């Protein structure tokens, strides 16, 4: 009986261990080793920190690195600002069927692939696209307007892609807030703003932080949206990694870049958790 239980335990554990080992741990160890070696001759390698040296020595790399981080933070903040009222409406104001319908509407865009969604934005924003024609028809623009290939277009794409991952944790935490607590806030003399600041936001904090972490990570690691919607100046750090691996065939430098990105996201997530006084267990549990 005990042996059977133990067998069951291992059987259940195996897929997890396989997944973690084969897809996460082994590739990362390999990547780490790769990033720490330098090619010194044909087929000859020596271990060194030269790849990281290259990263810190080249302003374009550093600049792209910092810009990607800043833009991801900005995308997270914008997503939060848009998603919060939406989530509040879904969780607290909408009732019954409307509630589930609205929730479903947030989900619908994710039934098509990210590629198709991004193409959708291209159809809307390009020179011969819908918005451009509309502006010309309304007489607000003299000629075709190009709205693609800049930071704003990229930001729109990033926020749109991330929306659901912010709305879901927010709706969940806001739903757990008792309506009577909000009413008590008003009853004791609070205004709408003070109820939001002192009651709703502190309660929703775990949802805000977990949603922000997910959105931030997704934005930071996004490749498709910055490539398709961003312009020449909107270089994303993932594009650098891609070009090192695929275009330049410099796997060593690409691996070092990959580790810098991992380091960056870890530091920013850790910093945010410290700053907001939340713990990973509390936000993810």
């Amino acid at each position: 009986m005990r042996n059977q239980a133990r067998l069951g335990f291992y059987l259940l554990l195996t897929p997890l261990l396989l997944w973690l080992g084969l897809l996460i741990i082994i590739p990362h160890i390999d990547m780490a080793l790769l990033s720490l070696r330098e090619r010194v001759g044909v087929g000859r390698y020596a271990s060194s920190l030269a790849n990281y040296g290259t990263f810190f020595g080249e302003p374009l790399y550093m600049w792209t690195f910092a810009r990607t981080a800043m833009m991801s933070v900005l995308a997270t903040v914008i997503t939060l600002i848009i998603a919060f009222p939406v989530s509040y409406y879904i969780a607290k104001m909408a009732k019954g069927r409307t509630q589930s319908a609205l929730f479903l509407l947030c989900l619908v865009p994710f039934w098509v692939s990210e590629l198709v969604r991004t193409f959708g934005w291209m159809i809307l924003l390009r020179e011969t696209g819908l918005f451009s024609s509309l502006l010309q028809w309304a007489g607000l623009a003299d000629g075709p307007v190009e709205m693609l290939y800049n930071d704003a277009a990229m930001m729109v794409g990033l926020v749109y892609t991330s929306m659901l991952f912010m709305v879901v944790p927010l709706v969940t935490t806001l739903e757990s807030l008792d309506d009577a607590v909000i009413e008590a806030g008003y009853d004791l003399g609070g205004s709408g703003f003070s109820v939001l600041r002192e009651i709703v936001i502190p309660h929703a904090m775990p949802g805000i932080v977990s949603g922000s972490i997910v959105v931030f990570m997704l934005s930071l690691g996004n490749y498709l949206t910055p490539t398709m919607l961003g312009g020449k100046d909107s270089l994303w750090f993932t594009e650098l990694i891609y070009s090192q691996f695929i275009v330049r065939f410099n796997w060593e430098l690409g691996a070092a870049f990959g580790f810098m990105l991992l380091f960056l996201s870890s530091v920013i997530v850790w910093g945010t958790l410290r700053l907001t006084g939340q713990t990973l267990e509390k936000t993810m549990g």
Partner: protein
Amino acid sequence: MATDLDCNTLTKRFGDTTAVRDVSFSVEQGSFFSILGPSGCGKTTIMRMIAGFLEPTGGDIRIKGKSMLNVPPNKRPVNMVFQHLALFPMMNIAENIGYGLRRAGLPKPEITRRVGEVLERVNLPGIENRKVDELSGGQKQRVAIARCMVLEPDVLLLDEPLGALDLKLREHMKIELKALQATFDTTFVYITHDQSEALVMSDQIAVMNGGVFEQVGTARDLYYRPDTAFVAGFVGDSNRWRGKVEQADGDRIALRTAEGLLINSATQGRDLRPGEEAEIFLRPEAIRVAHDSADLAQFDNRISGEVSSLLFNGAASRILVRDEIGEEIEVTLPQSGEFANLAKGAPVHIGWGGDQTTCFASRG
């Protein structure tokens, strides 16, 4: 006497259903007023209208003479103790109680002083830095009341705040609430479906059913002189029959139940004519039990029968007495010792005065 709260022909409709219909009442300053009714009778709707969370469809609410229509909840001089208390879980006790004072823009030292004072008054000094979930049910209750009372409202609304407590604590809190009300000398409006809470604590009770007030009066009025069949059935326990008036002689009438039991009763001023259908109420504690029928000579209702069932419940023990025609009557068993050996099937005599029976003409 000055009134703190006046409601005038208050009406609330939700779509086609009328939750509250033309309710008018006044609450005297410093008194304990209860609204008692079964769930769904509209009592919570009244309370939410007074607090400002619902807009009345018609009528007026005045607090200290000032109309509260179009005044938002955060500007009204009323505060509410919610059913599940709704303490702010993200704040400690001092922050919870100080919330309203902070909103009123009081300076910090003043807030600290007043929070300390109010905690003293509810007998919980020194718990300022505790968290909400570290308190027991009774302590939370007192903190919730303190959180409202620190703002010195004209009227305190309480929405079944004892509902979530266990029985022993509830009994204790009833007495404590009444004492707190006396300490603060504030008008309390209390809503409940539990008649014993209302009867014990209130100066005035309104019994509500189907969106209207059936009767407003003191606990004694409701118990001894119910105005309607609903009040007679809702407040206290009763033996209940339907019957027809057979004879009317001044203020005395004789009724016969569907089973054939003849009951003599007083009309208590109600107009009941022979042949009319009536509802008859008789409290189990108003009936005398005797071993010998001679002891019941002074009563105009006397029945001999046997004990068909013993319902032992300590002080509130009862017996069911079945008479010859099969009618069963619930009778409170005196705990003075003479009936300690009463067993099922034992012959017993019961009797009561006609004044103890209450009759109402059947509606419809």
